[in-house]
């Protein structure tokens, strides 16, 4: 018998998880649909003549995805915070990897698929209705020869009006998975108030990094600023003052020095953001689960 991962056992876990949580999940999805609908109706009621633009649609999508996805992730291992539930969870005859993969299947894959599907169902319904109402209003005030432009349904993974060679929304999506993986790890680490504690811990780590950058790295750099993102650094020109009792720092394209990181470092960093950070946090969650005691 494979002690690390067995697909049959994992599928049993998926079925067990569903049987125990299906009411909660169904109600939560209905609540998400209700909140999205309410939000779109508020927008239409407040700013109905402009409708719901693609930017508003994608902003709503990502805001909801980040908030709800991270909230869900933060309760993913809430059972481990309770002695009775945690014991019940740990003694189920399945490996730690299977238990983690089952949770990831629900939180990462299924939640994302369901949330996206619900968003589009609500979005399509609202836009169809808004367009129909908008057209009837528009028809009364325009000539038949004028062309009515209905609101378009957004592609939340691609914004053509902002398109670059590299689509930024993919990075936003990947950032979501990284942030969510932090909350998954937090839900194992923090027995109670996991969401709040993860936010606080992330802020503290962020502050620490800012402190290290601000107090340790910036002082050793010459006067200047980051140029074109964080990949290159523009060192300003430094000259003695004419009187010789001080220095002048100024930017001059002719004399400034530009230090750029090699392109492959940028490629690696983007690769890490897209594909490595989330799995690293999942791996940390796996080891934390293995060492969990109740």
């Amino acid at each position, binding site marked *: 018998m494979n002690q690390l991962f067995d697909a049959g056992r994992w599928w049993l876990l998926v079925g067990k998880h569903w049987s125990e949580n299906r009411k909660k999940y169904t109600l939560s999805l209905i609540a998400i649909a209700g909140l999205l609908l309410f939000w779109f109706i508020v927008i239409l009621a407040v700013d109905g003549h402009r409708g719901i633009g693609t930017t508003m649609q994608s902003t709503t999508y990502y805001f909801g995805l980040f908030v709800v996805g991270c909230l869900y992730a933060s309760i993913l291992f809430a059972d481990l915070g309770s002695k009775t539930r945690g014991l019940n969870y740990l*003694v189920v005859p399945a490996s*730690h990897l299977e238990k983690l993969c089952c949770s990831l299947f629900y939180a990462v894959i299924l939640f994302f698929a369901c949330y996206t599907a619900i968003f589009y169902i609500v979005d399509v319904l609202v836009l169809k209705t808004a367009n129909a109402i908008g057209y009837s209003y528009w028809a009364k005030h325009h000539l038949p020869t004028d062309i009515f432009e209905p609101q378009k349904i957004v592609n939340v993974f691609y914004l053509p009006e902002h398109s670059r060679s590299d689509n930024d929304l993919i990075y936003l999506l990947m950032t979501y998975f990284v942030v969510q993986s932090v909350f998954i790890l937090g839900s194992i680490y923090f027995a109670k108030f996991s969401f709040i504690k993860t936010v606080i811990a992330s802020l503290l780590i962020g502050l620490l990094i800012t402190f290290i950058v601000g107090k340790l790295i910036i002082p050793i750099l010459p006067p200047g600023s980051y140029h074109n993102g964080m990949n290159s650094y523009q060192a300003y020109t430094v000259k003695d003052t004419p009187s010789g009792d001080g220095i002048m720092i100024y930017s001059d394209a002719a004399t400034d020095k530009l230090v750029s990181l090699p392109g492959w470092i940028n490629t690696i960093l983007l690769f890490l953001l897209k594909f490595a950070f989330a799995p690293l946090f999942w791996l940390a969650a796996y080891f934390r689960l293995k060492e969990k005691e109740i």
Partner: protein
Amino acid sequence: MIAIQNLHFAYRKKPVFTGLSLQLQPGHIYGLLGKNGTGKSTLLRNIAGLLFPDKGKIEVLGFTPGKREPSFLQEIFMVPEEFYLPDVPLWHLVQHHAPFYPKFNKAQFEKYIAEFEVPAGSTLQNMSYGQKKKVLISFGLASNASMLLMDEPTNGLDIMSKSQFRKVMAGALDENKCIVISTHQVKDLENLIDRVTIIDEGKILFDQTIGAISRKLSFQISFDSEEVKNALYSESSLRGAAIITTNTEGEESKLDLELLYKAIVLNGAAVTSVFKD
């Protein structure tokens, strides 16, 4: 089946076990007795792999419990004192939980449920604490796991249910199973266990089979003041003094587990000395 060697365990700075060693064999129902807070539950959770020893070694069925491997977990079932069961119908429990235990027997489960008089069509949500506990015990027995760990299983059961529990447990043991019942309600285990292990302050004070106890000790009521004075342990009651003496006649008396427990805790040295020869 279970080999515990030199177990050291502490909760932060509070030591619970400092060198505990114990061997448990299949085919027995072990009664793990002790006061509240003496480490009974901690020992069971160490055996189940829910807690990890600070030092020493635990081996259960050839596995290291702390690794919590699936092959180990499907051979061990724990009925904790405080437990959680999901709010699902009973048949859901069988459909979605039972497949994790390869030796689970549905007919056996239904039989135990019937013996415990638990309404089979009900959902766990609508059941009382006692009924839920009986479901968990039934499930544990029907899982046919080689190792059944029960922590205060009779807590929350009414008088009739305790009687049903003893009846069900008595019929559940076979030569491949090892059942460990931890309790401080020693009366509940009378006529059920075949080995008594008394634990106190994280140490094994006493560990003997019921057969050995019956052969070596005599439990009786005495009105003879001299006999009471010379007894290994005595306790006055309205109908004379309940005493434990060395069994010199070779006649087996009815074991009073509660009296034995008190004798071990209060005058352990005298009682255990009888078993040394």
